[in-house]
């Protein structure tokens, strides 16, 4: 037995056990509806109603905020709305967008695409809510730095409502789950799929990375690169990565359009099969419900709406009005799911590659591109590595903040977490896809339990903030700053 197989053997039962708890499911016909998915959908729908479809009504205002039209001159040099959004997006746009979508379509059929987009549109409102709270209840530390995220709005926000005990418990549960999520979806899944794609383009099982134990070797290299930033403090790598990710995303979307252009004839059929699949789900296990669940699950995994992670990244923004960052944050699921995930889905459906047996995850996406642009898998692997890397850096930060919260900013705990994080890079790239996806999903979804309980309880606070802010916009107390060319 080689290293990879050994790691796999140890890890699989752990993953299975965690999954069976988090993904407790109800049987509906042939389909299994995990309650946790229902939990996320219900929250997104309720928030959409409660905040009056803010994701559509506030979309234009969100764009103006990101463009800096409301930036106060005295805040020049602080974190702008654009920067907060860009950092959060580079953490969210990861392999969920490339590999996760492929998983959705292999399991849920083309119809899953429709439900994924729906989930993305609804999720915008969950993100609006949690990021408003993230800014509202952030903590300014003694040295002037900012700590924010669900840990803080759960503990401080609920305490302000007289629910301090519940808030403290939820904050701790959230922090524990966030550490799990950062090791799972934010780390292992990324490492796993980055390895899968690199192996694929270097010649598969007969190629450069075909030898036994290659996953572990790849994992060690990746772990060193991650460690260089999070342990070695080499910021320049992180900065270069955050500069490259937006370009890569634009490049990726462009490549998708090229694939569309070469398959113009199949587009009507593809769209047909997406709608058909969404409402009739021919040939998919579990029918419509099966397609719906898969779509929602992959969307949530990709855009993390309701999970609470993004609230950590968004909370550093400079603003006097917490709700402005809520507006900006609602763009995140839009960019991530409604734009990028949809592009991947269309590429897979249009090229028809999802009908082949035995190809899963990122390999499926890669095949879809290869059918039009033969050299694209090589570029895709660069994108995959980059997205994976930036997502890992972002999640290592979320995990470290959760650790800091649990262990009262202990330096030793911080170092321990970061070492474990690097170790999990190796585990992730050595293990096969299924247990990794299972564990990653379970931990990321688990975060949504304490997070959304808190957001529900604090929803009236968000509503009040929103109404106040709208009032100020109406009276002109808050108005666009004269734009400086």
């Amino acid at each position, binding site marked *: 037995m080689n290293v990879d197989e050994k790691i796999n053997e140890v890890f699989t039962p752990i993953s299975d056990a965690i999954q069976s708890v988090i993904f407790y499911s109800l049987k509906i016909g042939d389909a299994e509806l995990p309650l946790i998915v229902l939990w996320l959908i219900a929250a997104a729908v309720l928030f959409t109603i409660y905040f009056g479809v803010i994701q559509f009504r506030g979309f234009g205002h969100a764009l103006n905020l990101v463009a*800096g039209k409301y*930036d106060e001159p005295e805040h*020049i*040099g*602080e*974190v*702008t709305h*654009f*920067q*907060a959004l*860009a*950092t959060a997006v580079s*953490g969210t746009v990861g392999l969920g967008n490339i590999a996760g979508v492929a998983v959705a379509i292999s399991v849920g059929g083309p119809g899953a695409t429709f439900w994924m987009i729906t989930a993305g549109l609804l999720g915008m409102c969950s993100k609006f809510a949690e990021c408003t709270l993230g800014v509202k209840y952030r903590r*300014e530390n003694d*040295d*002037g*730095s*900012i*700590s924010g995220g669900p840990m803080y709005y759960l503990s401080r926000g609920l305490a302000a409502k007289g629910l301090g005990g519940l808030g403290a418990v939820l904050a701790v549960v959230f922090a524990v789950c966030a550490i799990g999520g950062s090791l799972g979806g934010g780390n292992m899944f990324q490492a796993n799929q980055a390895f899968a794609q690199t192996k694929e383009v270097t010649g598969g099982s007969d190629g450069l990375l075909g030898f036994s134990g290659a996953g572990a070797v790849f994992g060690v290299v990746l772990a060193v690169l991650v460690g260089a930033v999070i342990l070695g403090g080499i*910021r320049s790598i*992180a*900065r270069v990565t*955050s*500069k490259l990710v*937006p370009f890569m995303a634009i490049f990726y979307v462009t490549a998708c359009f090229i694939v569309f252009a070469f398959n113009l004839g199949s587009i009507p059929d593809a769209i047909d099969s997406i709608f058909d699949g969404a409402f009739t789900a021919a040939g998919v296990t579990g029918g419509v419900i099966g397609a719906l669940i898969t779509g929602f699950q992959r969307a949530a995994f990709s855009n993390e709406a309701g999970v609470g992670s993004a609230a*950590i*990244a968004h909370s*550093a*923004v*400079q603003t006097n009005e917490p709700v402005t960052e809520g507006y900006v944050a609602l763009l995140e699921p839009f960019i991530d799911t409604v734009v990028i995930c949809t592009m991947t889905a269309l590429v897979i459906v249009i090229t028809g590659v999802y009908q082949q047996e035995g190809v899963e995850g990122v390999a499926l996406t890669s095949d879809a591109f290869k059918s039009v642009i033969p050299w694209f898998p090589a570029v895709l692997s660069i994108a995959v590595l980059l997205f994976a890397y930036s997502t890992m*850096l*972002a999640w290592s*930060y979320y995990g470290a903040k959760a650790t800091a919260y649990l262990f009262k900013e202990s330096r030793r705990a911080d170092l321990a977490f970061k070492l474990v994080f690097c170790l999990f890079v190796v585990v992730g790239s050595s293990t096969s896809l299924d247990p990794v996806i299972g564990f990653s999903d379970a931990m990321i979804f688990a975060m949504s339990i304490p997070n959304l309980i808190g957001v529900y309880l604090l929803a009236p606070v968000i509503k009040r903030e929103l109404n106040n802010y709208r009032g100020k916009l109406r009276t002109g107390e808050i108005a666009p700053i004269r734009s*400086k060319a």
Partner: protein
Amino acid sequence: MSAVFLVGVDSSAASSRAAVFVTERARAERAAVVVAHVVPWSPFGATTTEENERRHPTREAELARGKRDIAAPAAEAIRVVGVDVQAVVRHGHPAQTLCDLAEEHEVTQLVVGRTGETRLRAALFGSVPSSLVQISPVPVTVVP
């Protein structure tokens, strides 16, 4: 309206020459001087999560350092010859920010040192004096 000169300073030798030039002109014309140091920054620049978290104290430190090490000493050297002078430090795009300051302080002339970029560097990254010449609301003097 009396003349107000604005001089852009950084830690370069060229900017010191610009400051000397301004001092002489201001003394001769009984003009006031604004000494400005711009910390390069863009609202659309790429940042990391850690940088964002620490941005506020970092910004304060950048402003304090800019004032202490660059703007204040330059202003002091001008003040000792009896010219009315004030020092400003601000974040932003250097050329654009100097123009904004010029408008805010009703400046009549802008003075900067020549950066002496090679053609290639200037083509790739531009240079503060050449962009200033294009966008400044007031006459610009570039000191070699």
